[in-house]
């Protein structure tokens, strides 16, 4: 640390934040020194994003104190946070698409001449200066809607540089950046650091964290698990802290008999999303698709579920070639998809639990022309018990349940259809750790019962934990395929970073 001051730039003390049914933050403390890069680490649902929103003034903590530059403050809203020099760079882009990059960079504080006119000259000059500093190749007057996702991310980052920041929070900033852009970003971070700005860096990627950070704080289940000095620790120690134990694969539920090939893809392509993908899934087996966001995994699932038309290749069920033109076709063939985005794709939030669960088969649960409420309730009860769904009643709107229970409703929805193939996309995103291992065990059990299961995940522990075989993807291509016994973390990391030798499964 270059600064002589011992006051942290930002300090949170014993922060508690609850949502209905969830204790998202449970007495978390956290601090950033000026000129320090402090990594915040935790699995999905560990409370990182909630903590971040508290930092940025978007949430008010129920309990706990916030100190900025030594003085205690209340941060009522994002503007106040910004005024205090705390800037959040969102992972989910929060840009207005039909405005220029410059306007987005200075949103809410456009430079102004008389009569409320925008001072374009100043705006563009300042914005271009920032964009140059970020080594962006687009101009400040480019329309955001016309920019690539990566460039939009750069605009988001540029926003943070407009103020005299005391603390900058980066939330998964590299998720959509190319390697070259990453290098620029890291330079920027180093610059900021040199200027004495405190950096909070949130990421899943160990390599980045170990390159950049000075200290690492780990959250788990909404609770503080410890702070490590980066130079004095290693990935194992961090991982242990993160998941609460070392990866112990022997603990997992044993697989059942592996049966015949149920689903097979041969040379499946949906350019430019993914190309030439081949794999097999057998009954009683879990196949994990592992790769970074955007590697084409979700798109494969969508193709199998009839939501995308492949432009080459074939899909076989039980060895017979099939055409899947719609989700209805997929369902008829016994393919189910638990989608990645639960709230947008998986559930009708205003509907009650029972109705959500029986939605795909509501047309068959009839007596005469009417939906048989009794049949529905009995299905609901059956899967509520089997999946241990916690809800006061089936009448509860699904939006009021916790993430884990919501996910179980979606899984129950498809299990009740008696599918042959179950595709689960990011099964534990946004779910607390307790439910997480429940869902992992559930997936193992399902395989044991003879389902052919595909699990898509960007969390290595998850695939290692649940999959019998792992297909590693990078940039729309299958890089390698591993058996659970032979895989190492290194080889997986290499495969999904495009380093491994491209050998199709």
């Amino acid at each position: 640390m270059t600064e002589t001051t011992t006051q942290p730039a930002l300090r949170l003390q014993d922060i508690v934040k609850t949502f209905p049914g969830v204790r998202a933050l449970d007495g978390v403390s956290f601090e950033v020194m000026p000129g320090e890069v402090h990594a915040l680490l935790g699995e999905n649902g560990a409370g990182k994003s909630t903590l971040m929103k508290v930092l940025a003034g978007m949430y008010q903590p129920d309990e706990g104190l916030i100190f900025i530059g030594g003085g205690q403050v209340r941060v009522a809203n994002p503007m106040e946070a910004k005024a205090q020099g705390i800037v959040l760079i969102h992972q989910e882009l929060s840009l207005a698409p039909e405005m220029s990059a410059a306007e987005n960079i200075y949103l809410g504080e456009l430079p102004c001449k008389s009569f409320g006119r925008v001072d374009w000259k100043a705006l563009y000059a300042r914005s271009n200066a920032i964009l140059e500093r970020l080594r962006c190749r687009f101009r400040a007057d480019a329309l955001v809607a016309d920019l690539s996702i990566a460039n939009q991310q750069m605009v988001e980052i540029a926003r943070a540089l407009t103020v005299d920041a005391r603390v900058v929070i980066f939330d998964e900033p590299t998720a959509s950046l190319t390697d070259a852009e990453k290098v620029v970003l890291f330079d920027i971070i180093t610059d900021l650091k040199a200027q004495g700005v405190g950096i909070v860096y949130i990421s899943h990627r160990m390599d980045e964290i170990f390159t950049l950070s000075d200290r690492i704080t780990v959250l788990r289940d909404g609770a503080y698990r410890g702070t490590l000095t980066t130079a004095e620790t290693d990935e194992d120690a961090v991982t242990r802290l993160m998941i609460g134990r070392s990866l112990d694969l022997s603990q997992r539920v044993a697989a059942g008999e592996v049966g015949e090939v149920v689903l097979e893809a041969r040379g499946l392509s949906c350019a430019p999303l993914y190309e030439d993908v081949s794999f097999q899934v057998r009954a009683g087996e879990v196949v994990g698709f592992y790769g970074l966001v955007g590697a084409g995994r979700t798109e494969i699932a969508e193709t199998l579920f009839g939501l995308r038309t492949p432009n080459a290749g074939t899909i076989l069920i039980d060895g017979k070639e099939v055409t899947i033109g719609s989700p209805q076709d997929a369902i008829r063939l016994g393919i189910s998809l638990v989608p990645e985005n639960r709230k947008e794709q998986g559930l009708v939030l205003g509907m009650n639990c029972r109705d959500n669960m029986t939605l795909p088969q509501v047309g068959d649960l009839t007596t005469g022309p009417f939906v048989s409420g009794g049949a529905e309730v009995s299905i609901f009860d059956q899967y509520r018990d089997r999946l241990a769904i916690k809800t006061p009643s089936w009448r509860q709107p699904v939006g009021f349940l916790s993430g884990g229970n919501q996910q179980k409703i979606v899984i129950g929805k498809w299990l009740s259809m008696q599918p042959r193939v179950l595709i689960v996309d990011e099964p534990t995103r946004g779910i607390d750790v307790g439910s997480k291992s429940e869902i992992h065990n559930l997936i193992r059990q399902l395989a044991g019962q003879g389902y052919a299961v595909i699990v898509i995940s960007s969390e290595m522990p998850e695939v290692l934990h649940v999959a019998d075989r792992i297909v590693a993807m990078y940039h729309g291509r299958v890089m390698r395929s591993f058996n659970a016994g032979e895989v190492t973390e290194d080889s997986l990391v290499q495969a999904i970073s495009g380093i491994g030798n491209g050998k199709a499964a």
Partner: protein
Amino acid sequence: MSTTNATTPGPAAAPLRWLMRNPIWGFVLIIFVFFSLATDHFFDIRNFQNIMVQTSTIGLIALGMTLVMINGNIDLSVGATLALAAAFAVDVQSWAMFATWGNWQIFPAVCAALLVGIALGALNGFIVWKTGVDAFIVTLGAMLGIRGLVFVYTGESSFYAMNFAYSDFSALSIGPLPVLALIFLACTLAVHLLLSRTVHGRNAYAVGGNREAAINAGIRVGPHMMVNFMIIGFLAALSGVLLSTQMGAATPNLGRDYELWVITAVVLGGTKLTGGKGDIIGTFGGVLAIGILRNGMNLMQVPAFYVYVILGSILIAVLFLDKQFNRRTQGGLRL
């Protein structure tokens, strides 16, 4: 990863690309050429003057509607607001207290009318802001209610202006431009500048395009929307005043269904109902398109019955084409 700046346009491609962004102007061009060839009286400076005057009514409101719709709101009450403002503009000049003012009695009348428009807009905006009820519903109610106010105020009959100076105003021209057209063009320019050059105008895109981001950036979304409702109230009232100068009178049924035509014009101009997108250049094109179509079909003597069908079909067709042109890759996901 793709970069979008890769396309390097040749010099000839620039107008073409502009047309692709503003397809309505392509349409305006086509119908302009069509009517010029198809009928004798279309291509005539006096006819163009007529078109400008005729479109000014819908056009003025459409300017305001563009702002409101970019915010992601809508205002269905403009037709009724127009009628109430017209009634004030005509009635107030005959009040006894202004009897000695001569032609100046028009001045307080017009001010009253415009204030009424602004006040009604403010009321709509305030309700939308404070209650959080969808603007569609708020202004649907207001559309009925304000029409009721018109009938309460006028007692069901028309008002007329004793003073011919009032209706003479509408016949004035400055150079080749009728004064009504001039006012419309001036307002178009003003709102265009407001939307494209001022902080308030630019913020409109943020409020409609990403409300969450606008709130986080410290834009006061509620008052912002209210100001835009006041602007559309003002423009609807101005439109009512100008219309009443053409009539020298105000009728209680004035402006019925105008909201539908205004929305049609604005949507033709490329503004999205969902907010965040649109501009005055497009709206101006949309307004002209309707004006030219109406005028041209009049001149060609297309029977009135067919005009309804043609206008309705064109609206749907433009919507369809817009969807085809602007189909930003949704990743090919079939939803």
